[in-house]
């Protein structure tokens, strides 16, 4: 083990490379561990490639640039059978992100409300919230998805007998059709305005906090934020020339054309995921609130704060530290559970990668893509939540 040249070192403090040195030992262990993992990994990869080629199974990712030849039911970007497998997979990723983002937001809102309701002084409200949590958490999600899907497709009438909820809005077993803005520059401006609103809100909140710290005067951030959220898109729309034309859905042949659609598949998946996850989030929120010392409530009420002010200003901010880590895992669960989409026909990444791997026969590549996508989404959520958690921890007193 020992290297004589090290001993011959002139000025450095004499340090022997000895097995008794814990540093040396740990370096050796780590090198060995990395080497072992590397060898096993290399064995698996080369063995797989060898197996596939002796069995005449195509390998590699060349298929991604080939024409897909299949159609996809709903897609945030244009897609047709003439597009490549790569684009099909992109559609799947976008569809998964779409359901995950909307699902996480709605589940958080609903879950928080139910979690607070469980602690309500009103017996009826608290009991209803409790029953909700118990029922929802104890029925398998897949079953719930089938339930929502069947409910939507079986109970709503066909498109020709669609229920005209309000002018331009139709409900049928093809989904909910609503008027949509036509292609116009003004609507792009409105979308930009909407995004800008978030930046402005962020700035406003910071300024308001500085001002309150300096002068003690509170700024109505909630009303200000709301005004920005409505005002900015409106401004963009006005600058764009305030166009009025809407693309209203109308019945033509088998189905409605025009407008925007909330499909039964998306709706059922969203309902199922949101209601299910909200049940868990409610418990997270409840336990978070209960983790805050009861003295805080008493102190706040001694200062003359109302119950809802106490909750909003004193208790919830403190409970966030307890809430965030389990909340993160609920977000991850929701995202991963969205893969149950295959069962009810929502074209998420699993559904599309499955079709792809089946049409091309490249199962290993297909599954690698699915794993990579979920890993990336999950890691992004984790990183964001960890950052947020640190951010919260700083303001803790």
């Amino acid at each position: 083990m020992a290297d004589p040249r090290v001993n011959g070192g002139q000025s450095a403090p004499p340090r022997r490379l000895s097995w008794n040195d814990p540093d040396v030992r740990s370096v050796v262990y780590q090198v060995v561990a990395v080497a072992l993992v590397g060898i096993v990994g290399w064995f698996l990869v080369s063995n797989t490639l060898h197996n596939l080629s002796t069995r005449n199974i195509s390998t590699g990712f060349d298929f991604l640039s080939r024409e897909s030849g299949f159609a996809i039911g709903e897609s945030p970007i244009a897609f047709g059978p003439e597009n490549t497998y790569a684009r099909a997979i992109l559609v799947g990723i976008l569809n998964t992100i779409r359901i995950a983002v909307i699902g996480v937001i709605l589940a958080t809102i609903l879950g928080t409300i139910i979690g607070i309701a469980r602690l309500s002084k009103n017996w009826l409200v608290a009991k209803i919230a409790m029953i909700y949590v118990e029922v929802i958490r104890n029925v398998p999600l897949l079953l719930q998805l089938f339930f929502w899907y069947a409910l939507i497709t079986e109970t709503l009438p066909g498109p020709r007998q669609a229920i005209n909820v309000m002018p331009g809005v139709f409900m049928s077993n093809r989904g909910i059709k609503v008027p949509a803005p036509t292609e116009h520059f003004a609507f792009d401006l409105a979308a930009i305005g909407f995004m800008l609103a978030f930046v402005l809100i962020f700035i406003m909140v910071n300024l308001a906090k500085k001002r309150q710290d300096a002068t003690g005067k509170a700024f109505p951030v909630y009303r200000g934020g709301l005004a920005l959220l409505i005002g900015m898109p409106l401004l963009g729309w006005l600058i764009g020339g305030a166009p009025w034309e809407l693309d209203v859905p109308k019945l033509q042949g088998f189905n409605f054309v025009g407008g925007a659609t909330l499909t039964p598949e998306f709706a059922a998946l969203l309902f199922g995921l949101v209601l299910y996850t909200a049940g868990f989030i409610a418990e997270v929120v409840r336990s978070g609130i209960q983790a805050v010392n009861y003295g805080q409530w008493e102190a706040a009420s001694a200062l003359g704060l109302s119950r809802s002010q106490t909750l909003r200003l004193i208790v919830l901010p403190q409970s966030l530290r307890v809430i965030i880590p389990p909340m993160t895992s609920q977000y991850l669960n929701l995202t991963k559970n969205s893969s149950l989409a295959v069962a009810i026909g929502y074209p998420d990444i699993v559904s599309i990668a499955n079709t792809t791997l089946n049409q091309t026969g490249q199962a290993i590549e297909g599954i690698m893509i699915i794993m990579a996508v979920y890993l990336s989404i999950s890691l992004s959520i984790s990183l964001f939540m960890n950052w947020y958690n640190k951010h919260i921890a700083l303001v803790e007193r």
Partner: protein
Amino acid sequence: MKLLATAAAAAALVFVAQGAQAGATFDAIKAKGFVQCGMNGGVGGFGAPDAKGEMKGIDVDLCRAVAAAMFGDANKVKHTPLTAQQRFTALQSGEVDLLARNTTQTLTRDASLGLIGAGVNYYDGQGFMVTKKLGVKSAKELNGATVCVQPGTTTELNLADYFRANKMTFKPVVIEKLDEVVGAYASGRCDVYTTDISGLASTRATQLPNADDHIILPEVISKEPLGPLVRQGDDTWLVVVRWTLNAMIEAEEYGITSANVDEMLKSDNPNIKRILGVTPGGGKALGLDEKWAYNIIKQVGNYGESFERNVGKGSALKLDRGVNALWTNGGLMYAWPIR
């Protein structure tokens, strides 16, 4: 669930030891004493359990026939029900020895999946089924329709091709499980359900509550030669499967049935003598007993018998022989000679 099964099968390809030599599958099947067959779990006429829970169907018969040839006992079969999505990975990874699951023989499947087709036991084509009250008489009127379809099938691709070629648009609703996709069609979520015409007939006869409410449109939009597949790399096994199918068709052509096969042993037609092993040679060449074809016919029946009892007039599907008639009757069933 589904994904897990596929992943597990794919993992088998990762870990399985290297190397496969000729005859390995054949020898392994001989050694374990039964044929592991991948098939449909619920498509009446092709592969579905009957009232007693026994698997029945034209594909099931083919597996049983292979077992009869291999072991002299048609019951030496184990079934693995597979969805369209799982079937190829299951065969590739060795989970099943033989795939007989209304599977279309295509170039991709033959050339890039490491699999190989062993013949055709049902010539089919893709069609569309709609409810009568939709008032549609031709597939050309389907512009803008919502179409229910199962993923991982040739069906999914032909559908897109057909609408593209006819400059029409459609919305697919893609659901993996047969029950669920048929449920979506039955509830009215889709205007149209599409698959192989035999599959449509099967769904109409066995899965939909009121068969008379549905019609199959006249257009046949694709060719679907359905047949058994095996893994590449063991030609001995491939040949056994191929000649099992040929033997069933040959038997029909020479009028040998499960009922008369014992009398036929006394026939002096040299063809019949060769088929039934009275003139030996064929069995030995295949690595089987000389009674291999006798056992198939005695225990399972000839192709015509299997057809009629599973998908033909003796079944709920009531399909005509059509192109699946013998070549001598103007159909496509033309077995290679057993000599």
